[in-house]
């Protein structure tokens, strides 16, 4: 079978044996036997480290869990600088977790987590930071400062954690370039290899934000809202 790989210089076609194997195995074969210069990243080979996310026929996949097929077109992730071939620079996207303050701020050691509480953010904590959602998100194409799907999912993970005593700072932080900028297009959900829906998490964060007195700035002219009622004046603290 033949596959095409988008390299720095040009699209390159490689001829491979037919068979049912993963794209990562195919790339390794190319690297070791056909072309030492092909660059890509991998690690676990078992879909849990997030290293090998790339696009096949314009859809984000993990190379180690995708069975390569005749005629496939392989490209690097979108919305991040390409360092070389299929390797992208994720520093800036990782930095979104820092900007979004995705961590526990103050711990409530009294909180008891039961089964139900455990399920609230179980799926969100399955995120492998592969960047597929980031690559698929149309908002990044126009706004590089958008906090984006994986970091907002991570914020929801911590905001929904019963052990977090002080979610306000995180809620404040995600008002700008955050939850209201998302178009709810659902692309991120479709491509996530871990079945996470960042879109759904963003919706939950919107509801939580309104409980903190924020309202959708896109409907700002309606005035109203919850101001004051929750002992919080809603003014961002940064």
């Amino acid at each position, binding site marked *: 079978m033949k596959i095409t790989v988008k390299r720095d210089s040009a699209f390159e076609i490689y001829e491979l044996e037919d068979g*049912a194997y*993963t794209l990562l195995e195919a790339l390794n074969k190319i*690297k*070791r*036997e056909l072309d*030492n*210069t092909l*660059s*890509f*990243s*991998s*690690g*676990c*080979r*078992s*879909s*849990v*480290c*997030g*290293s090998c996310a790339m696009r096949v026929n314009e859809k984000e996949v993990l190379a180690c*869990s995708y069975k390569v097929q005749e005629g496939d077109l392989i490209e690097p992730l979108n919305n991040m600088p390409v*360092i*070389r*071939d299929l*390797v992208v*620079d*994720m*520093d800036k996207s*990782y930095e979104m*977790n*820092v900007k979004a*303050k*995705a*961590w*526990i*701020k103050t*711990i409530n*050691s009294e909180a*008891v*987590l*039961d*089964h139900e*509480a*455990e399920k609230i*953010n*179980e799926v969100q*904590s*399955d*995120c*492998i*930071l592969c960047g597929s959602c980031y690559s698929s998100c149309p908002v990044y194409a126009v706004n590089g400062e958008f906090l984006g799907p994986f970091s907002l999912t*991570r914020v929801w*993970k*911590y905001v929904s*954690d019963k*052990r*977090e005593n002080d979610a306000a700072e995180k809620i404040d932080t995600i008002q700008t370039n955050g939850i209201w900028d998302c178009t709810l297009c659902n692309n991120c959900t479709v491509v996530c290899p871990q079945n996470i829906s960042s879109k759904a998490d963003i919706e939950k964060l919107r509801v939580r934000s309104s409980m903190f007195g924020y309202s959708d700035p896109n409907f700002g002219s309606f005035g109203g809202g919850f101001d004051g009622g929750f002992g919080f004046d809603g003014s961002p603290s940064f």
Partner: protein
Amino acid sequence: MKTDVLIIGAGGAGLMAAIAAKEEGVDVLVLTKEYPTRSQTCMAQGGMNAALGNVAEDSVEDHIQNTLKSAHGEADEESIRFMCSEAINAVEYLDSIGVCFSRTGDGKIAQRRLGGASAPRACYAQDYTGLKILHTLYDRANALGIEFVNDTFLLEVLKDEDGNACGAKVLDIRSGELKTYIAKTVILATGGYSRIYDKYSTNSTASSGDGIAAALRAGAKLKDMEFVQFHPTGLKNSSILISESARGEGGYLLNSKGERFTDELAPRDQVSRAIDEQIKKGEDIFLDIRHLGESFIDEGLPQERKLAKLYENVDPVHDLIPIKPVAHYTMGGIAVDNRSQTNVERLYACGECANHNVHGANRLGGNSLLEIVVFGREAGRNAATKAKEVASLSVPAHTECFLEKEFSNTVDFYKYKEKIGNLLYNKVGIVRKKSELKDALEELEMIKSLLPQMGWSDTSAVYNTNKQEFLEFRNIVEVSEVVIQSALGRDESCGAHYMEAQS
């Protein structure tokens, strides 16, 4: 580039060290050849031991005794006592920073039994214990403002004129530049070396023993390098791990005739040997979980079904899973004292690359995640305390740079990487013979002598993974040499090092 504490490696051990050092109030910089969340720690599924006694009676003393027994007399009781006693604090700490451990009905952290434990002791987060611990530690490191430099490959540990570690020489993978980092203390947390077995390993491709080889070149002592743990159930083609829980839940091991041939729940080394014996008789070996039923498999072992389908093209609900034992965990590593300090002043080590004398000849499932948290923190604290005592940064003495040597690149190192894997698996594997170990050493020395004829053919400076893989290959050669020499140095069978009597 300068800092107080320089940490190399950002798996569970490196991150824990960074957090602990930062909390001591010193400057910390972490270098990693990947991104932190891509470290192999994310692959751990089973769990992390702590005698919480949440689901059945348990005690720290039992944890200590189980660990000592499994170590076959090759570990240090004081270190084990320390680790097992700290386990409860360690889990409490992880819980407090947001690790989503699975819970019991009454809201306690759930626990399950892994091999060799007298009680259900492993705290877990579904099938993703390592992933969730690693990511949460990373988030905590972010909260503390710890600085990371990703895509940076450790070449050499640097020392000053007095022999103190004082920094590292690295390759910036993105630009291809060689860089020097200067620090008051250095911590190595670069992970294990199971990838010397190449395709016969469950490990991440990054586990090539880089830090261990660099430590050795810097004069650090290594210990117990012959102790390599083989996991009985790697998938036959890809060596991807099928978790021990498949046997724990009632899975059978069968040979080609459909016969069971061993106690599936015996310790890993015993089961691996039983399988090896069958394979040497020409049998194919399978894991059979069909009798557990589809709904049970989907509920209890979803990850295993997914992995078997994807990587072996079989559906365990209807088919047998072809398996073989493969290298999984390396007990040996850089020798450290109970302050995580190596014999090189100001050089510390923690995690799978270090040998804290807690696993001896055989590691218990669930004790590695525990080790990286407990000793990662110790290494971070001690290196920070030491850094505060060091008045000023020193100047590194000259070290020879491997990359500046002549390489004719007429011999393909990828072929030899595979050869070393086969050689080690066949002659330095589950069952060893003195004569075969000698053959293996001879062959390895031959391969080592070919290094100058190898090299990299990709000439680009930017993200040259061909060059990086060659650097890893060099470390694989050096570490393999020590593994074989250590194996030759131990005549008796002990734990994972099993010697067959010569006939």
